[in-house]
């Protein structure tokens, strides 16, 4: 790693002040940041460690029936919290299917959405055409090995997917990231947290320099929810495709459905049209499949990932099944 200097933030205000300095990055779990510095993805001159700040950890029930998770809550702790397990199984499952136990003991819910893409061209130590590494250098994956890459929302400038699992569940749950910066803070919709390449192929998220995620808010409980993750090996691997589904059921009739796909685009992909068409459908009816298919009209394959379209459709269908049984 290139050399950097280090400070520990003592409070949120302190963290924001320090994080706002030029060439400065924030350290929480460190499970991504350290690798970025090793590969050369980032080369900060300064690192602010925010892990000693109190009051940013824990899961609290909100008066409106929702829940707020402090940004510094460890992934394992959030996933296994009784409230999350009972009321938001899709999130609990998504977290527990992420990474490894050791990483989940370090990584935080606030840091997790800031994961960057796993595209091997992005992650290479060696110089590689990659607009997210060197703006303007091109996209080697476009005509290269793109079996694991996007089927939605890609452009010729970037075809990578956002690889993390919890954000997919959070997108399905209409979660909101609460941020703070020197001007106050924002409420950012989880489903729009990442930046699509059509807007800016060099960017990862909308989080600004000096802006800190301090918590995540989720609305009312979604007990009929589930997360499905498809990968070649059974654990400790990023998804080929994943699906997060939350259902409101009336008997076996769907009153509301929220369906988000992971690892198919640079952001978790809510199937809005599918959700519309699922309303009023009976579980197990053929209309479910038609509703899912409708969500894929703007799916576009790359040279090597046509299979992902079918796989994602099947994943959505299976996740609906699993959510209904939750």
């Amino acid at each position, binding site marked *: 790693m290139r050399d950097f200097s280090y400070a520990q933030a003592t409070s949120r205000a302190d963290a924001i002040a320090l994080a706002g300095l030029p060439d400065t990055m924030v350290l929480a779990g460190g499970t991504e940041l350290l690798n970025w510095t090793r590969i050369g993805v980032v080369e900060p001159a300064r690192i602010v460690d925010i892990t000693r700040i109190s009051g940013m950890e824990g899961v609290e029930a909100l008066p409106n029936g929702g829940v707020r998770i402090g940004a510094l809550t460890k992934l394992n702790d959030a996933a296994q919290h009784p409230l999350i397990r009972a009321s938001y199984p899709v999130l609990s499952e998504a977290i527990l299917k992420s990474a490894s136990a050791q990483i989940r003991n370090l990584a935080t819910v606030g840091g997790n959405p800031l994961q960057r893409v796993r595209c091997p061209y992005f*992650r290479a130590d*060696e110089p590689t055409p990659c607009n997210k590494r060197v703006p303007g250098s091109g996209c*080697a994956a476009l005509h290269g090995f793109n079996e694991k890459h996007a089927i939605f929302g890609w452009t010729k400038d970037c075809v990578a997917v956002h690889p993390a699992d919890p954000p997919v569940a959070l997108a399905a749950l209409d979660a909101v990231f609460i941020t703070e910066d020197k001007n106050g803070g924002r409420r950012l919709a989880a489903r729009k947290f990442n930046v699509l390449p059509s807007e800016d192929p060099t960017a990862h998220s909308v989080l600004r320099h000096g802006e800190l995620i301090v918590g995540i808010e989720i609305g009312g409980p979604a007990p009929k929810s589930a997360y499905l993750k498809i990968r070649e090996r*059974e654990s400790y691997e990023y998804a080929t495709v994943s699906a997060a589904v939350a259902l409101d059921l009336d008997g076996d009739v769907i009153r509301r459905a929220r369906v988000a796909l992971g690892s198919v685009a640079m952001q978790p992909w809510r199937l809005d049209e599918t959700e519309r068409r699922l309303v009023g459908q009976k579980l197990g009816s053929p209309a479910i499949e038609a509703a899912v298919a409708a969500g894929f009209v703007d799916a576009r394959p790359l040279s090597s990932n046509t*299979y992902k379209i079918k796989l994602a459709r099947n994943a959505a269908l*299976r996740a609906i099944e699993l959510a209904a049984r939750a």
Partner: protein
Amino acid sequence: MSNLGQPITRADGAVKVTGIARYAGDQNQPGQLHAVLVASTVPAGCVSAIDARAALAIPGVSRVLVAVDMPRVHADLDKISVPPLATRFIPMQSHNIVHEGQPVAIVLGESLEAAEAAATIVRVTYERAAFIVPETAAVVSADPKKGSYSMSNALEFNKGNALAAIAAAPVKAGAAYTQPSRHANPMEPSAIIAVWKGDRLTVYDAVQHLPAVQNVMAAVFGLPATSIRVVSPHTGGGFGAKAFVWPHEILAAMAAKVVRRPVKLVLTRQQMYGMVGPQPQMVHDVHLGAGADGKLLGVGHATTNITGVTEDYVEFGAVPGRTFYACDNITTSQRVRRGNVTLPTFMRSPWDGPGSWALGSAMDELARALDMDPLDLRLINYAETDPESGKPWSSKKLREAYEEGARRFGWRTRPKGGTRDGHWRIGYGVADCSQGQARFHSTARIRLKADGTAQIESSFCDIGTGPATIFPQIAGEVLGLDPKRVTAVAGDSDLPYSGPTYGSGTTISTGAAVQQAAQRVRAKLARLAGWPAEEITMRDGQIIHGDKSRTIREVLGEAGVAELVSDGTFDLPGGAPVDMGPPEFPARTFGVIFVEVGVDQELGLLRLRRATGVYSAGRIINPRTARSQMIGGIVWGWGMAAMEASHFEPALGRWLAKDLAGVPLPVNADIPPEIDVGFVDEFDANSGPLGAKGIGELGATGVAAAVANAVYDATGLRIRDLPITPEKILAV
């Protein structure tokens, strides 16, 4: 009670579970510098300039060595063959680049972090040349002048007229089967610490054969072998990646010589992709012709593997075609495609691992075409003698293994393929396991002490196969000692010469030397006791003759001798360093693997549900360690079948994903507890005095075919291209 066949716990257990066991990177030396290699980012061409000013400005950075700083390789290296020298192309002897990832500079720092940071800012300018993508290069015959890899086996073989026989056969099967390059990825990245004292070099190295490193280092520097000492008590996994001597080892020793300080070099996981060879990408063309009764009339097995531009590494994947099944008409051939890629090398189960994948799949396709049970097809074509030479096997009890395996697995009563278990479609597959048996000249010394303990001394190394446990069992058997009273001292080239720990040859070779040394010590003890050696037995530290017995202490004390020492050896015919069995009895190990898989065709999931492997592998010295070895082999095969692939990126000319995230290896959750392993009771009287053969690689053969066959059974999809990933099994 015999020591042999006892499942005793590992002798090195305590040091491994406590973190005391030392691997190369743990052997820190006073005054050492940390070396970090700068690797070429272009696949071909040459280095035109290196600007290390910024790198040298980092505090703690001591030197940045470039080509002109390196000593010239001594002419003695010409006398060392390739292998065990992995490649004759030693980087930094010139400015030439032959593959991406080749070392071009060495950064030396007082601290690891200083050297690491400096390595990222050494500015290398290249003159790029056009590079060749090996997978699409022209297919050519291997050149015996480009390394000796091509001479290890037959490049072309013909018995009878296979082409005509296959063409005329009533039933035919076969196709092209492919497998990607795969890196061994042992958990320990290759590492070496080189220390010079005057003209003497000691290296702490991660190896599979200490004397090879010793000889190569001596030749590189023009020194006698006695000037070089290799120390390697433990190696963190070899799997072939540490079998030969790779350039980074030589570079570390050179760097230490130039800066006159110990140099510690630990390759990064990224560098394990570029600087140490993989098993190469291969295409197998297998064609089988059979009568309606299932008897094979003709076998054709032709393989092509990629290699680098410096030497022709040949992966003899066609060996199974001429050794597995009886047939009068067999043709095999081996060819290569050359490109700018890291030179491939042995990987656990070389030759038979790849070949058994292709042939085992083709046999299954033939069975389907014949509408015959694939196990029956194998029984019909059972090779009582070696199909290649016609000679009798050193031993073979494969029929018993088939029977026992089928019984344990429930093969004959298995449900129909494609039966559902929820979303899973279940399939069953079978394939042959077999590995050629290598034997190596080896020696060992035994010291028997007055207190009734003994010490084995030999330069073998430990890569996890358990010699430190098994050899005391062997010596203890001869000397009537509890194995816990016998210590193996190894991993030092100053000790008596041992053959390598690859080719599954350590037990059969060094074990035999240990046995002989023990027998000679026992004979000496008998002489001291005044009894004929053939009339005594030994038990519990006593030497017994009829109804008389004396303790070892008494006998030695009376003779005024502190210890008895004898050397033992395992010699091969003609003084050869290696062979594949005695000339009259070709040696192989055999077995059968049955697997049950689940396929979820909607989600493209393939999962292992259970497996049974039963093996005919000679006498099993320790069933506990042997079982673990076979399980390890089966999991190795699962990885080959279901997930592993190192992709060479053709536009960039390098390995695409150089880490453990982009190249999935099996994890614990992939492997069910129901892996059942069994051994047929067998004593191989012809391969060596122990009756044992080798098992380290046998378990990894056949698995990929069994899995592909099971996938076919479950889904009707015949996958001929590994690995079997979601896109290949997703229902259309």
